[in-house]
């Protein structure tokens, strides 16, 4: 079974480049503006969209993404509204993959089965749930796979060769390599090490490997794109949202502020040719 995620990575590979995966927080700074931001992402150069499901206690996120979640929740965002946002996006774009990213509790409280059914109907393609390691696969990963959604797992510098097969076992769509130990938006990775780490993961899987954490602009995106099948950017985009706000509210400049950063980073990603020699 192929999914939108599989097809998109295949298409990007055929173009001889890495994919750009963009993360924004659903409902940030408010549900309406957020939908406009998401709608503008593909045109600005995003190949895949990660949509953050806001949560009060994002334990693996740095201050920027924490603040984005706080803004979204303050604007009344919920998991139900996040699914509505995906539905609205999907009505106009049937090709760009959407991956929901967040923490397990809102999904658990929604009810795993109804969540998976509603997510699939809305047009969600994959899930990244930070606090569900392979040890908890029965909770959501296996039911998600059975429901036809991709379950994308994070691999980290602490995931050694012994552990990698367990991490990859039920992973589909792509592998998200977290390039540093730490929270989102913090450290800058050692690019040489990242290339080596991607190569190590690729020895264990045929899935595309996207790399996140530490992508701030065209240059850093270019550096990551050299060694990976995909580049993930998040903190830089939610910071663009924040900087565009006036007294905490969206302005006419908000959507374009995010698009501008995406265009810049997309240009960096596209400078790297991966055409087979």
């Amino acid at each position, binding site marked *: 079974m192929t999914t939108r995620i599989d097809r998109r990575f295949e298409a990007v590979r055929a173009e001889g480049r890495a994919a750009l995966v963009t993360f924004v927080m659903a409902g940030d700074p408010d549900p309406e503006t957020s939908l406009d931001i998401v709608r503008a992402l593909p045109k600005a150069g995003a190949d895949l969209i990660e949509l953050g499901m806001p949560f009060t206690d994002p*334990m*693996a996120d740095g201050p920027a993404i*924490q603040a984005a979640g706080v803004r979204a929740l303050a604007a009344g965002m919920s998991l139900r509204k996040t699914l509505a946002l995906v539905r609205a996006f999907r009505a106009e774009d049937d090709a760009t993959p959407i991956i929901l990213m967040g923490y397990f509790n809102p*999904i658990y409280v929604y009810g795993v089965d109804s969540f998976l059914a509603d997510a699939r109907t809305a047009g969600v393609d994959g899930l990244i749930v930070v606090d569900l390691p392979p040890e908890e696969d029965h909770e959501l990963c296996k039911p998600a796979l059975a429901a036809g959604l991709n379950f994308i797992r*994070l691999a980290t*510098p*602490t995931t*050694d060769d012994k552990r990698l097969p367990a991490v990859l076992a039920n992973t589909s769509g792509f592998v998200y390599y977290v390039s540093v130990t*730490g929270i989102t938006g913090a450290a800058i990775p050692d690019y040489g090490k990242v290339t080596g780490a991607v190569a190590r993961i690729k020895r264990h899987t045929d899935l595309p490997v996207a790399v996140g954490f530490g992508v701030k602009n065209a240059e850093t995106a270019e550096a990551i794109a050299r060694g990976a099948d995909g580049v993930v950017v998040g903190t830089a985009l939610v910071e663009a949202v924040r900087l565009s706000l006036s007294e905490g509210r969206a302005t006419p400049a908000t959507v374009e502020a995010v698009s501008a950063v995406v265009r810049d980073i997309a240009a960096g990603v596209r400078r790297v040719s991966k055409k087979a020699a």
Partner: protein
Amino acid sequence: MTIQNPNSFRTGPDETGHFGMFGGRFVAETLMPLILKLEQAYEAAKADPAFHKEMGEYLTHYVGRPSPLYFAERLTEHCGGAKIYLKRDELNHTGAHKVNNVLGQILLARRMGKKRIIAETGAGQHGVATATLCARFGLECIVYMGAVDVERQKPNVFRMHMLGAKVVPVQSGSRTLKDAMNEALRDWVTNVADTFYCIGTAAGPHPYPAMVRDFQCVIGREAREQMLEREGRLPDSLIACIGGGSNAIGLFHPFLDDKSVEIFGVEAAGHGIPTGEHAASLTGGRPGVLHGNRTYLLMNEDGQITEGHSISAGLDYPGIGPEHSWLHDIGRVTYISATDKEALAAFQLLSKLEGIIPALEPSHAVAKAVEIAAAKPKDHLMIVNLCGRGDKDIFTVADHLGGMS
């Protein structure tokens, strides 16, 4: 999964860290290898007599154990019912039960070669205990504490500074214990190589709930022996306050299979359960996943964690240890709650009747003990866990009572 022995309540967790449906290991992949290593190291230490011997030495000569089991004669007279005994863990070095657990974890950190210790703290008792043992063993110590708690538990902040720890006020979220725990987890995920996370209560990802419980069980083991020696039989009831619930599980666990022993856990009802401003996860919450485990949580219909409220910073947490969630669901322990007001009254009552100033946390247990004892016959033997002393709370209490009258 192993089948838990149906004849015993003391065999949990299973090898995946579950007490029934509660517990588990809900953490980011970065932390997973660390948690597995910790589990291995703890299992090895548990099987090593040298570890227990070392622990015993420090418990006796540094912590000051065993703590007395004291017959509270005037409190008993006041209630006119059950014979009330206080398990006096407030007499431990650093003034609370927290040190029992910290000692175990710090000795384990030393075995694992970890030099940097991080901790979260609410009331500051766990922070002080961690800072104390880090000073004793020459380890770097960083304590995360909600900015609100830094303000209301100043004496403990000073003590931590004095002991050489770095106290980081946490400004995110509700700026209390849960946010301090988030920040500690963020630190751990960043500093994986050299850092040991010393969790202060019997919650978090496996193996913490079981490990912290094991270290706290010294309370219940002593209480059992002391009661047998004093009265020639087991107590009829136990009562302890519950935030995360480490003092309570430490007292309860060695008695769980003694069917004649009635067990009560007291949550913080804050301004009252119906007001929604409380920290009673079992009474007013439902199962969810936070901080590495599935347990009862305070949250809204969207699964967003809500802010607990309690006059006591140590109980002001929207969750509870997973073993308590299980004991609640199977009905072995009865969980009740006490309001801020009831705790304040008990704080004064115990101070005046027994010359013992309790912390606001166990004041919740004392409040309910007084009610329950009054309804019991005079030959009923009750143990109240007095898990902390009230020095840190005198300013908070004075504020609520409108001065030092």
